[in-house]
């Protein structure tokens, strides 16, 4: 009972903090919007069969928009440690697992809010959205963001200082995004790029989302779905262990 209250408390804190941070909110919306607008319009001459590039790009952007928020919210544990608040949570009478779950659900919620807003651009882009595909999108986004928050928490328990934060964000987030097949169709990519992209777990998130929204994909939908589910399961497991093992 008190564990659930604890999880809720940690979750609530994430939400309150996010709602106060205006610049974070603004930047997290502007980024996907810019990508969609600039890339979508810039490459509007590209046609993929009957699709225009912007429509092709859209599902990828929905997924990519989750990456920053999710990883950042996992990694924010470093800040809690630096500013001492982590100690307050660690001596409270709740288990480490509950703290982990609260953090993960908090990050996941923030990512979902962002994802749904990006998803709502489908009306402008005239990408048809049914009730079913909307629900499936939510499910996919939850899976993807849970694994990303866990990755953030794993990173946070591995590194000691805030100084390495920027470096890590650049080293992880950019390759993760650009090699996810969000920006180009994998079937047209050269072999090396195909291989590298298929090694990137985010690719399967993008693929699944693309199939869900516009019914095309390079990797079969159920294969993508099982790969991201498995990946999410293991990142949560490893994240949970890393988090509770740490002092």
């Amino acid at each position, binding site marked *: 009972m008190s564990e659930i209250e*604890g999880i809720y408390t940690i979750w609530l804190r994430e939400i*309150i903090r996010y709602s106060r*941070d205006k610049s974070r909110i603004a930047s997290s919306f502007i980024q996907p919007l810019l990508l969609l607008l600039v890339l979508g319009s810039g490459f509007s001459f590209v046609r993929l069969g009957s699709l225009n590039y912007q429509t092709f790009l859209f599902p990828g952007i929905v997924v990519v928009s989750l990456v920053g928020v999710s990883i950042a919210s996992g990694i924010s544990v470093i800040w809690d440690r630096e*500013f001492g608040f982590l100690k*307050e949570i660690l001596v*409270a*009478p*709740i288990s480490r697992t509950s703290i982990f779950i609260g953090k993960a659900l908090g990050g996941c919620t923030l990512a979902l809010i962002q994802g749904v807003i990006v998803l709502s651009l489908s009306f402008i882009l005239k990408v048809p959205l049914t009730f079913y595909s909307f629900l499936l999108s939510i499910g996919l986004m939850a899976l993807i963001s849970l694994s990303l928050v866990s990755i953030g928490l794993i990173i946070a328990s591995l590194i000691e200082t805030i100084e390495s934060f920027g470096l890590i964000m650049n080293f992880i987030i950019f390759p993760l995004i650009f090699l996810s097949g969000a920006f180009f169709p994998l079937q047209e990519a050269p072999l090396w790029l195909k291989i590298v992209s298929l090694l990137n777990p985010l690719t399967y998130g993008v693929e699944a989302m693309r199939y869900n929204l516009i019914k095309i994909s390079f990797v079969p939908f159920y294969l993508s779905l099982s790969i991201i589910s498995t990946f999410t399961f293991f990142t949560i497991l490893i994240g949970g262990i890393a988090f509770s093992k740490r002092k």
Partner: protein
Amino acid sequence: MNVIETFSLTKKFNDLIAVNNVSLKVREGEIFGLLGPNGAGKTTFISILCTLLKPTSGRAKVNGFDIEKEQNEVRRSIGIVFQDPSLDNRLTARENLEMHARLYGVPKEERKKRIEEVLKLVELEERANELVKNYSSGMKRRLEIARGLIHYPKVLFLDEPTLGLDPQTREHVWEYIKRLAERERITILLTTHYMEEADALCDRVAIMDYGKIIALGKPEKLKDKVGGDILVLEVKGKEKFLKEIRKIREIKKVHLIGNKISITVKNAERFAPKILEFARRNKIVVEAISIRKPSLGDVFLYYTGREIREEASEQKEVMKRRVRFL
């Protein structure tokens, strides 16, 4: 009844023994002080008692609960004010308190009442809805004390409660702590390297050095141990003077601290003229002389031959800063 009991508690970090075989008992309702220089192991000791660190060997009980086997019960029994701030700066004071109350499972009907109660206690009611970011360090410390009390702990741990506070705020915090102990009848275990603080606040003091308890008792009793008054002299020709005064019977102990000589004697007022006369006869120039009653610092000196120095902490700070720049 003993609220805290430790049995041969020991904590090793690789080769360093931070807490060395400490056994002590803290009684219900008392303010108990751990006095010692920086690095004596005080914070490590507290961290073990509040379940943040596991002991290497030994056992401890807090409020009757074993610190290793009954972690959650121990955690529910204690409130902690850490040495470094541990508030969420982006939340308001009230939100910080609410969060804490929830984490400790304070029932919803109770929460609001208790929050008002503790806010009043530390006189922060009027600024409760401000972000903690805008608080001064004294206010933050008060808020942390308030937070530590919301779940009605049996024991309150205060780790260096006035470190880095200005003298005025420090006295305020002292007052709060005293009033708390009286009014709420909770047991307080505090660590400090300020001997005035231990003297002003504590019913009993344990002096800690290199992880060991080297003396324990009421402050007055400990000071009595020193065995008299303290006479501090500054002289020209220390070596000769030190050699000569060995001959004087009344002197109980002599310490050389920097360029000052500290002498322990039974009755310093009557002894002072004698030593001046003695110096004159031996052609030693006395530049300054002062007399005082022994402090807990002298007790530390008595047992260790060293002073509790504050420079040590400043040095550490400088080191930290340097490391950060690298």
